[in-house]
């Protein structure tokens, strides 16, 4: 099965970490990504720019409305993702637990919909 691991963390805290020197976190991510590539679990993955650079689009009554930022103020923001291949949810959650940001934020594990 394929799962999307959505990485949520507090951007303000991430900024503070960046100022304090992100090297440790970057290294941890590099090691983690390398390990899931080697095991064949990795399909895709990216980090996202801050939500202040985000734009939200919705269409209501045929009219396109474009607004600044994400829809709601939340404590944690989507900061990146991995698309992985895993045998089952147990494998997916054990991979999610190894995402470095799991220690400071949270990882949402979403199975990918299969149309048949």
């Amino acid at each position, binding site marked *: 099965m394929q799962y999307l691991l959505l990485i949520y963390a507090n951007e303000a805290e991430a900024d503070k970490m960046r100022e304090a020197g992100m090297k440790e976190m970057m290294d941890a991510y590099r090691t983690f990504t390398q390990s899931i590539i080697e095991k064949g679990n990795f399909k895709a993955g990216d980090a996202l720019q801050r939500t202040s650079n985000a734009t939200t689009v919705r269409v209501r009554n045929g009219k396109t409305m474009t607004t600044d930022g994400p829809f709601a103020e939340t404590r944690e923001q989507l900061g990146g993702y991995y698309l992985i291949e*895993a045998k089952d949810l*147990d494998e997916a959650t054990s991979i999610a637990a190894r995402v470095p940001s799991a220690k400071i934020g949270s990882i949402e594990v979403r*199975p990918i919909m299969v149309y048949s």
Partner: protein
Amino acid sequence: MTAAPLRLGSARREHRMRDGEIERIFRDEAGRVLATLIRLVGDFELAEEAMQDAFAAALEQWTALPANPRAWLVNVGRNKAIDRIRRQIRLRAKRRYIEAEAIVASQALPPAADEDAFGDDMLRLIFTCCHPALSMETRVALTLRAICGLTTEAVARAFLVNEETMAQRLVRAKRKIRGAGIPYATPSADMLDERLDGVLAVIYLVFSEGYAGTSGAALMREDLAREAIRLGRLLEELLPGRSAIAGLLALMLLHDARRAARATADGDIILLDDQDRSQWDQAQIADGLALVERALRAPERPSVYTVQAAISALHARARHHQDTDWPQIVGLYEVLVRLQPSPVVELNHAAAVSMVDGPARALDLIDALTARGDLAGYHLLPSVRANLLNRLGRREEARAAYQEALVLAKLDPERRLIVKRLAELE
């Protein structure tokens, strides 16, 4: 898709087995039959439908009990599942059904007498039903339905929701199992302890609801306690030698052994010190004592269940209330506070301290607990306080504390007990 209705007492069966006997077999075997069918057909809902088909076939066909009813039901259920998949192929001719049929048809049936194979299937299903990706209430409902074989209606009754709501909850749970890829598997060794804790939490919740349920009819609660004990025994059989399981089973047996003595015929609460100990179930106590001793001898750190069982064992061993080994109970509560810090455990600890060091020392602990505010709104806090104040001869303050407790107590039996205590103060 609804299951075929069970036609009890079908006219087509000439030499009828007693319906009660067949139903009892269904009830006893449902968990294992379902667990093995899920492994064979790979899908929860299909396995459930196939099991209902097999039950219906048994009601039609059994004139006498087959040599191995479980193997009969699994075999017929598997064939019914293949029939159902074939029907889907005819209806939709989709590739996934054709693949599904090939997979099911290639699965070997377990040898009829292979208890281990059935046991392994059952254990896998227990871990699926108690998977942490499901909400706690869903885990409990699914376990009662699939493992204990309770009807959806009975599960609904236990949780005071209507049958439709419970049926929906169960359907959503099965969809999540399939959709999210929750495995039918015993967790790997590195995850087993953690996941076992989750299973034990489900069983303990079922038991607590049955033992001290805040709602629901007494009869249903008794059933839940019995189911929890049955689950504990099953788990103990499937994963032998794990002290946490033995500890939980001991705890449930020892608590449940006091059931008959815990309330008057009118439903009034009888506290431990006033219980008629001759009404305690001694066979069950002996069972519980043996288990708790085994759990305590295990090399690993005792689980919270084992420590609680050890406390319960000391009460069970005391022939009279005044024979209770309070110093040891205080010691065990101190262990428990460290293992599982909780204000309720601290409250129990203080009550035990009053039996060793006297009510004045215990009152200091209670006042400190009250000042922290963690138990604000919990009626047992002022109740225990009132008891201590009364023992210290401070009757006016005791009365005020009982009155405070009366405001907070929600259940009728609790309120009646407090009213009785107030009357005794006069």
